[in-house]
């Protein structure tokens, strides 16, 4: 099956271009500083005010700085986030918490890391590429479905083989 026909309605689609809507202020958030440079190159060369934050540079202060910036921001601010899926949805959840709407957030995906939620034990884990993984919580071998929860920021992991849940026979 091709990737397109396999994708579900809930599978996220990431930004490739920039939003058309008028924006009065930009807020750039990235996983590593290099991505800020990449993001800036994508943005139009204008003199709109902007703030930026890199998780790698901010270290432990990242969460607090992100929240503080969002709390001070006024409507018209657009949030641009660049990083892997785990990071994108972590930032998106924080932004949502502060009242941003999807129309005010552009997510640019890089890399392969993403979160998988085990439907059997609710364990959440960050995984690399591939459509199978072993749950770190209950040990069940999971198939990673394209079904995605925006609330959890994770793909759904479901037991791959109910006759051999722990993959012992393989």
């Amino acid at each position, binding site marked *: 099956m091709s990737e397109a026909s396999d994708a579900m309605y809930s599978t996220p689609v990431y930004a490739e271009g920039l939003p058309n*809507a*008028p*924006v*009065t*202020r930009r807020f750039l958030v990235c996983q590593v500083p290099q991505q800020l440079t990449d993001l800036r190159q994508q943005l139009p060369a204008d003199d709109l005010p902007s703030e930026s934050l890199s998780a790698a540079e901010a270290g432990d202060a990242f969460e607090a700085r992100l929240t503080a910036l*969002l*709390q*001070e*921001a*006024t*409507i*018209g*601010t*657009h949030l641009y986030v660049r990083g892997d899926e785990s990071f994108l949805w972590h930032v998106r959840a924080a932004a949502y918490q*502060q*009242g*941003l*709407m999807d*129309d*005010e957030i552009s997510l640019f995906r890089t890399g392969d890391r993403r979160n998988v939620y085990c439907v059997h034990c609710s364990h959440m884990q960050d995984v690399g590429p591939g459509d199978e993984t072993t749950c770190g919580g209950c040990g069940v071998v999971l198939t990673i479905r394209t079904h995605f929860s925006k609330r959890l920021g994770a793909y759904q992991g479901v037991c791959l083989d109910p006759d051999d849940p722990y993959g012992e026979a393989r």
Partner: protein
Amino acid sequence: MQTLSVKVADIRQITPLIREFTFVPTSGELPGFSAGSHVVVEVPAGERKQRNPYSLLSDPRDRTQYRIAVRRLDESRGGSQAMHANVDVGDHLELASPRNFFPLHSQARHHVLIAGGIGITPFMSYVAELQAHGASFELHYAYRGGLTGAFVEHLRERLGAKLHTYDSEAGEKVDIATVLREQRLGAHLYTCGPASLLEAVREQASALGWPAGRVHWEEFAAPEPGVPFSVELAKSGRRIDVPGDRSLLETLEDAGVDIDSGCRGGVCGACKTRYVEGQVEHRDEFLAEDERGTYVMPCVSRGCAERPLLLDL
């Protein structure tokens, strides 16, 4: 359609143009409603009934009464004049149950309300609801002093600094850009009043980068008259003439055709009806461009004089 029977318990002339009506149930309790809801009142206007939507002013938690306010419009088709002239205390009226096309947004962290004149009405129930929950809000109320500022004093007492008033008779004007510019993320904007106000608010919000999902409005859209035309009902073969001063929806209701309706102003979609043949003068804000060859909104849109409109009814 199922209606509620109510008795007019009180009438107050609040300004020379605005009259407030209090309705109580003829039996039991009234249905609850959410803030921003309206009811459709069957107004006794001569031999015919005119059905007009009015926002509910009362506290949504109060099941013992509904209150509405009606601004008399001399140039209208007579619904508001009939409410002022023909309705007395003790009269019985029929209402369609409350519906809400202008609800509060559940995710909003702050609510910015901008009302023009009689457009204050949906915000009366908003204010009751927001105050009951201790929600963060501000109300901007523009009006003509002595004429359309029906609830200024009432609101001033209850809201204090949350209320900002703009009396055009005193040369005061709401500066929409200033109201919108410094709003924090998470605020939602609601506006109700004349079309010119709604347009100005929506334009300014868009220019300041407010996404459409944060901007909510309700327009008092009444059907405009047009040329007389006729319709044919495909299923029964009936032919019905629509006079120039009646809407297609009203004419179908008068003829006993069972048809759902909601806002009666071309925005909610409840009366969406399929047509098979004929030309439609679309006046609604509901249908998508590609639906207009197949559907008509009979509450506001009309056929043309040349040939009858064949409806799938």
